[in-house]
């Protein structure tokens, strides 16, 4: 008995070493479920996985009408993550109204929502609709008549986002089991939506009535979709609850693990640590010391770092772009990675190299707007004035060969003028006085 315990302990330890990823934002997790829909004990493996990820899990059973859900206390978020199992009833709609969920998400809380075709979880549907994910209505569930088993299986090939689940060769023929009743969603055409798992071409949704129009057909439908708002908080919707159950856990573990990691911000989390721009050159004179003027040479650098589950590591990519804007972009430069930043070795330094500011003065924005589907967004903007040349910064006339002609004429005119004054005074007006007086009287 004791030996068994030790083995168990050992296994837990190994597991925690293997999968001990931590969220970059926090670990307080609330799981909301309804006993009438599902017994939570059938998901024990999933909860163990959450524990392995060091999440501090609180569960809340909602079949009792007196239960209250508090996501906030005096405007402070009580949880970092929210996992929503399907819940029945109106009570739930009041307690977890879509507005509350949006507020939670806008304030930095990540949401993992599960729906099933049998239960209409109105607030979750309303919330997802706000994001642009439209799961099939109640009774409509996904079918694929070309599959042999009654359970719906999805292959790795149908996964769409590398930042959520990276397909490596060894996982090529893996299949994920979603159980029998799966809902599929149509997705809006938004940049913030992260499509994750696409339905197969031969699939379709259908309801109880035989000739009811289908909600999705073929590859239009998605069974897993994510959303990342502009504050970098994430929501993920999964169209099946059996996907997480102990029966299929072994088969789905990989994907579940990655989904948790992505949604609860353990991976694909990047941020900018250091943004600077200086005059080009070895001494790196900053803007504060010497404001930029038109056609100055300037170098822009930004350092990016990525959360690998444990610590921050350099984020290396070849598509980080810088823009210099005054309403329209004047420059868009793909920056080159320079290796770890000297001040902060945990981040990768990117540099534009030296570029010449446009010959136009005004307020310019130095901006890195790095947004990729599935990765945290980076938006670093700095507005600086670029001045025009001062009056003594133009080339002097004698430096320009063309102006020599004009200079010579000015000089000769002035000298001639002086001579003229001298001669005008020294020369008597008339050769003979008589003519002169005659002229005067004229």
């Amino acid at each position, binding site marked *: 008995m004791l030996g068994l315990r030790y083995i168990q302990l050992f296994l837990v330890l190994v597991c925690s070493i293997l999968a001990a990823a931590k969220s970059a934002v926090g670990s307080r997790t609330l799981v909301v479920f309804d006993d009438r829909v599902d017994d939570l004990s059938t998901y024990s493996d999933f909860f163990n996985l959450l524990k392995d990820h060091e999440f501090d899990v609180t569960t809340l059973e909602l079949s009792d009408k007196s239960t209250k859900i508090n996501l906030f206390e005096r405007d402070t978020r009580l949880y970092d993550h929210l996992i929503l199992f399907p819940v029945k009833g109106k009570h739930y709609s009041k307690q977890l109204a879509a507005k509350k969920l949006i507020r939670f998400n806008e304030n930095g809380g990540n949401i993992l929502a599960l729906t099933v075709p049998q239960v209409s979880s109105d607030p979750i549907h309303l919330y997802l609709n706000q994001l642009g994910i439209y799961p099939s209505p109640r009774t409509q569930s996904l079918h694929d008549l070309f599959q042999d088993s009654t359970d719906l299986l999805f292959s790795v090939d149908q996964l769409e986002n590398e930042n959520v689940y990276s397909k490596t060769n060894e996982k090529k023929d893996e299949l994920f089991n979603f159980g029998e009743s799966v809902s599929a969603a149509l997705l809006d055409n938004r940049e913030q939506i992260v499509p994750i798992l696409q339905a197969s071409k031969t699939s379709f949704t259908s309801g109880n009535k035989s000739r009811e129009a289908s909600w999705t057909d073929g590859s239009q439908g998605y069974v897993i979709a994510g959303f990342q708002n502009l504050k970098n908080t994430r929501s993920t919707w999964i169209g099946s609850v059996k996907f997480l159950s102990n029966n299929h856990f072994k088969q789905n573990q990989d994907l579940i693990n990655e989904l948790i990691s992505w949604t609860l911000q353990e991976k694909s989390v990047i941020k900018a640590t250091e943004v600077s721009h200086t005059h080009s050159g070895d001494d790196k004179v900053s803007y504060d010391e010497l404001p930029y003027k038109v056609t100055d040479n300037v170098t822009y650098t930004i350092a990016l770092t990525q959360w690998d589950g444990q610590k921050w590591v350099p984020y290396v990519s070849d598509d980080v772009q810088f823009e210099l804007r005054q309403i329209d972009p004047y420059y868009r430069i793909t920056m080159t990675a320079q290796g770890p930043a000297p001040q902060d070795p945990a981040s990768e330094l990117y540099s534009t190299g030296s570029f010449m500011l446009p010959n136009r003065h005004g307020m310019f924005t130095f901006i890195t707007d790095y947004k990729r589907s599935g990765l945290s967004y980076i938006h670093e903007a700095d507005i600086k004035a670029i001045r025009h040349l001062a009056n003594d910064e*133009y080339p*002097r*006339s004698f430096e*320009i060969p*063309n*102006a020599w*002609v*004009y*200079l010579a*004429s*000015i000089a*000769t*005119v*002035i000298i*001639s*003028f002086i001579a*003229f*004054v001298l*001669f*005008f005074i020294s*020369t*008597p*007006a*008339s*050769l*003979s006085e008589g*003519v*002169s007086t005659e*002229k*005067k009287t*004229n």
Partner: protein
Amino acid sequence: MAPVIQKKKNPASKEDIQKDFVEAINLSFTSYKNQVKNNRKLRLIDIFGAILVVVGIFQIAFVGMIQDNYPFNAFLAGFIICVGQFVLLMCLRLQLTHPFEGISKSKAFGEFIIASLILHFTCLHFIN
């Protein structure tokens, strides 16, 4: 009959105009000669003025030759000093031949010098 008369009249009038014109030119030329013959100061002024015109023309020719007016401010300064000096000289000349009432010739000369100095400063400032 009328057209014939007109035909006859027309060349006659043309000749008349030509004659008048030549006469007028000759007249003004001789009067100018008379004016200058006895006044050296006017000669000074006229020669200086003529040279200023030539210098101005040279500068325009230069711009035409290089097909570019860069640096435009320098060109303007160089050209304006010629034109301005010419205008001031002509004003002085006018006052020498037909003095304004209440303004003596020496006062006109003094004003000419002050105006010229201001012109020179402006042009030197403008050429950068």
